[in-house]
């Protein structure tokens, strides 16, 4: 019987199998950041051991950094101490750091691919659940906890049980105004926030293949929001084209050798998945969430489900938190905030989509609109293309790179009780600040909401 792409990559990285237990899995690339690494380095120090393969770990500061005046010392003492600790640890242990001020700095899942560090066939981990993003390049990438970060630093391996495999196939052509964020919000709304638990998902089908690399990253990024360990997409010409020439991409003869290997990375025709789902791209509308987990999403013209005996888990509590009525429509509701950013949607294509939509227009007065590029390189590219001017003229605040209001760890927070249309990946209670009410959507839907001050169907912008 054939093997899935996931099985091929996984099996090639198994160093040792514990009987009736986990496997020792070798890790090719390890990303670290300031929030989930300090306790791991402290562990190495107390054991008196070095980083086993320092060249395979790359560090950046992103979760806890300010998005204004990054050239000045960080104001918040605890945040500053955490970032300083990362700098010191990287220096002490010989790990490359793309910290604040470095031209490569940015959200860890944005910089890996854009620097060409993320490549097909690899195993990639980071102490952050959205490590699944990198899977868009046909590799196994997953989030780990700090104890596991310490394992990787100490041995370049993690102990894991092999997940099950799931296939999610989306065929057909996307409707106008529907983008990759809508596809993944749709899939999660169909399979629920725990529908992928214990699985690694391979996304495939003509609708997925038609997406750009950046759009594919958005899909894999949110596979974790259905509980999956990660998601991946088989590499193809678009993948190779994207990687070629990037800073850390293989060059010359090395490129040729890797390319011929990468071309073998496909699921065999007769491979079996533990479970499979199939969706049609034509069924997908622009999506938005109404509740407090990413599974609570609906098409923009649909109605919030009624609370009754068979409603989804926690619906009543969610709607109370969101102050929304079951059976009502979101369309037309006033909103207060728009956040465009996070490792889900902060790349240059996202900024271009937003700029194109708001060009020559003004945001609604009631709305505060913040746009936070995923990396310094994205920021520089946006400036080079003049997007910064378009966005500023439309009334958007363009900030410096970081995770920002995606998790509300720095001062970028949505105030209590306010509604925010956000391109990030989590609408949990308080995720964007205590009491904040998050509605997840695509960059297009978020930009449209900024312009009208209301939940808006982007397709209205394409009429006539």
């Amino acid at each position, binding site marked *: 019987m054939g093997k899935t792409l996931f099985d091929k990559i996984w099996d090639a990285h198994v*160093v040792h199998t514990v*009987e*009736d*237990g986990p496997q*020792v899995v*070798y890790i*090719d690339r390890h990303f670290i950041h300031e*929030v989930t690494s*300090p*306790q791991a380095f*402290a562990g190495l120090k107390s054991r008196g*051991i070095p980083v*086993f393969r320092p060249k*395979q770990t790359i560090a950046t500061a992103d*979760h*806890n950094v300010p998005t204004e005046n990054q050239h000045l010392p960080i104001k918040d003492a*605890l945040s500053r*101490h955490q970032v300083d*600790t990362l700098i010191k640890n990287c220096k002490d242990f010989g790990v490359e750091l793309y910290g604040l001020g470095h031209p490569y700095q940015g959200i860890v899942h944005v910089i890996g691919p854009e620097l060409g560090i993320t*490549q097909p*066939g*690899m195993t990639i981990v980071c*102490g*952050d659940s959205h490590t699944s993003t990198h899977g868009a390049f046909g590799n196994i990438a997953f*989030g*780990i*906890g*700090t*104890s*596991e970060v*310490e*394992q990787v630093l*100490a*041995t*370049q*391996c993690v*102990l894991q*049980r092999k*997940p099950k495999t799931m296939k999610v196939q989306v065929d057909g052509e996307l409707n106008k105004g529907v983008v990759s964020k809508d596809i993944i919000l749709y899939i999660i709304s169909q399979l629920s*926030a*725990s529908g992928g*638990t*214990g699985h690694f998902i391979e996304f495939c089908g003509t609708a997925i293949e038609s997406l750009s690399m950046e759009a594919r990253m958005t899909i894999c990024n949110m596979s974790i929001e259905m*509980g999956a*360990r990660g998601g991946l997409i088989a590499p193809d010409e678009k993948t190779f084209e994207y990687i070629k020439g990037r800073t850390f991409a293989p060059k010359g003869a090395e490129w040729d*050798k*890797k390319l011929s*290997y990468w071309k073998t990375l496909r699921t065999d025709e007769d491979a079996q998945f533990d479970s499979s789902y199939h969706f049609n791209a034509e069924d997908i509308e622009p999506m938005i969430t109404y509740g407090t*987990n990413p599974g609570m999403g609906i098409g923009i013209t649909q109605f919030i489900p009624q609370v009754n005996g068979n409603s989804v*888990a*926690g619906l009543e*509590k969610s709607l109370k938190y969101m102050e929304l009525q079951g059976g009502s429509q979101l369309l037309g509701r006033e909103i207060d905030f728009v956040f465009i950013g996070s490792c889900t949607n902060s790349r240059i294509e996202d900024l271009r989509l937003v700029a194109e939509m708001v060009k020559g227009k003004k945001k609604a007065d009631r709305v505060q609109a913040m746009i936070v590029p995923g990396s310094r390189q994205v920021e520089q590219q946006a400036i080079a293309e003049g997007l910064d001017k378009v966005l500023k003229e439309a009334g958007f605040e363009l900030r410096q790179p970081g995770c920002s209001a995606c*998790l*509300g*760890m720095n001062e970028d927070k949505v105030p209590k009780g306010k509604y925010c249309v956000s391109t990030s990946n*989590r609408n*949990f*209670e*308080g995720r964007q600040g*205590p009491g904040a009410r998050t509605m997840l959507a695509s960059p297009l839907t978020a930009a449209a909401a900024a312009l009208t001050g209301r939940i808006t169907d982007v397709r209205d912008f394409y009429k006539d």
Partner: protein
Amino acid sequence: MEKFTQLFSKCVLLPEENVDTDQIIPARFLKAVSREGFGDNLFRDWRYLDESTPNPDFVLNQPGVEGQILVAGRNFGCGSSREHAAWALYDYGFRVIISSFFADIFKNNALNNGLLPVQVSDDVLAKIFKTVNNDPATLAEVNLEEERLVIEKAGISENFEINNYKKYCMINGFDDIDFLINKSEEIKAYEQNRELVI
């Protein structure tokens, strides 16, 4: 890691589903560089109405509620990979979490920190909620050696599953790093035999 073999305790009930790690420990409290002290901010936004006023409706603030076992609804620990969630629960004093379903990364994190996730069926979970609701003094016994959960008052005597390797680690207080460091020769040999990716 502390050893764990057996525990008798009362239960604390949190009958919510999809309790995510942002609720267990909100991001703004993740700025520490050590593992200690996170218990103070466990369930912070549910536990407090504002900066310092405890929310009287939240279970951890109710008089008489105590115990080292937290019983919670399905899909406990979903969301972010922050191990701080496991540290906060442990630091607060919990040693066992009972639920009908755990998110993957949380489960690993818990096991890596001596916090035992006990997965039971939805029916058993409902029974526990009902019994403890009626009598908060109900005692539960968790026996890791025998992989058994016993709550006499609820008529529960259930086996739970944990893989042998993790069980061995918890009973002996070993962690994965010790195990991996012992494998370093094998890891080096593996590195020698491959070239494609590195």
